[in-house]
């Protein structure tokens, strides 16, 4: 009987001991303990990370196709109002008047587009052949190629010269970041955003930014015309 009690007591103490060990080393909400207990996964993750190099390490093969300040370095893919796939570098070679907008904009964007048309009107038909006007939407959910096409019709935009682009949300954010264009979706589906018309030279470098709405566009137009001497 005594030895049986002894065995039982040993059993209980071992159990308690193991319980305590489990508490100390077991998983808990504490982040440090989490780390301690995921050593195996840590090793696996580390190996994964080391293989994760995203870009080619043979720098010698990379040609400097575009200058340091050209936005055509962005490799994002876009779709225009006709459903055609477009890259920004497709606009290389001619100066561009470039704005970000959204088609269902109630107030600012129509004015932005009219400002761009005012700039357009400062150029002769001959001169106009050498320029492009690009609108990129910040509302890809609503602004499908069809919606962009409707917008172009509504504003009477000459699609020989004007391109309206839609794309991936991350690419839109990246492009906006490059241009210093700020935007934010509001609860009602409208966007608050900067009012910015960019003048890019034929290499895709931003040479001038016209800020605001309904302001005098003469300086922007001047800058644009000056680019014609390339």
């Amino acid at each position, binding site marked *: 009987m005594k030895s049986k009690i002894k065995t039982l007591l040993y059993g209980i103490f071992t159990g308690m001991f193991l319980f305590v060990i489990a508490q100390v080393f077991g998983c808990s909400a504490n982040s440090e303990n989490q780390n301690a207990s995921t050593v195996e996964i840590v090793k696996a*993750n580390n190996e994964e990370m080391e293989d994760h190099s995203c870009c080619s390490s043979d720098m010698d093969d990379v040609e400097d196709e575009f200058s340091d*300040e050209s936005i055509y370095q962005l490799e994002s893919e876009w779709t225009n109002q006709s459903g055609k796939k477009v890259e920004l570098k497709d606009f290389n070679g001619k100066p561009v008047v470039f704005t970000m907008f959204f088609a269902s904009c109630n107030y600012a964007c129509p004015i932005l587009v009219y400002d761009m048309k005012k700039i357009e009107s400062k150029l002769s038909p001959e001169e106009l052949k050498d320029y492009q006007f690009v609108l990129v939407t910040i509302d890809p959910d609503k602004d499908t190629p069809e919606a962009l096409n409707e917008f172009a019709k509504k504003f009477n935009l000459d699609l020989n010269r004007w391109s309206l682009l839609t794309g991936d949300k991350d690419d839109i954010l990246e492009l906006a970041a490059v241009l210093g264009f700020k*935007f*934010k979706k509001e609860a009602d589906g409208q966007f608050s955003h900067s009012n910015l018309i960019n003048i890019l030279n034929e290499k895709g470098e931003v040479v001038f930014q016209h*800020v605001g709405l309904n302001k005098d566009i003469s300086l922007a137009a001047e800058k644009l015309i000056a680019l014609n001497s390339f």
Partner: protein
Amino acid sequence: MLKKIFIPVIILILTTSVSAATPVKTKPAPEGMVLISGGTYVPLYKKEDESGKQIVKPFYMDIYPVTNKEFLEFVEANPKWRRSNVKKIFADKFYLKHWAGDLQLGNINPNSPVTNISWFAAKAYAEWRGKRLPTIAEWEFAAGASKTKPDAFDDEENINRIQKWYSQKSPEKLPAVGSTEKNYWGLYDLFGLIWEWNYDFNTALVTGESRGDSNLERNLFCGSGSASARDVKNYPAFMRYGFRSSLKANYTVHNLGFRCVIDAAN
């Protein structure tokens, strides 16, 4: 008979103790990250009613900001992000200026947070690690915690503590990560070390709706307007919003770094 009971008793005690110690979890957090459970978040410039609430889904966040040592690994593997190779459109001329060379840290603490990196560089690092930059909502949600509670946004003592740090000048040589406080979530250095990049920093609008010109937003930064903010006493939050809206994506700042997050997908 007791001997027969002995083993099952042990097993019983073991299993109950182990299951008591292990909370139900789908997967452990990735190395160096902690789980931030989801919730609602009200941005600074919104009221705390229904219209202001945003949902923040659960995510994992780096416990510490990214260090100089870690960033060195990144540029070793990605030559186009080395100081002498980077394009001006992606990082300004002060990019990694505190390093001795393209691949040499020099006389800085390798475990100090990396700064003088642009949004593009931070984003590229995050992608290389299979992660991403935190959105403002995620960062503010995680940083809204004090040491002891998850939402201390309106906690005056907490605000004063943070404000004290914001009023100090950043040291020339930043100390190692982990040298400031840990908050409720287990995150270090959200305050007291560096500012941090966010994925959508350029939605921290200083201009309001696109009526009128792009002057300073009256609603947010002028006296009368701040009355519509969630907590007018939270001056540090105003400072962060102001700072974010002053940034451009290729800017580098000596006390601006970053940390990464991953979605906590089911």
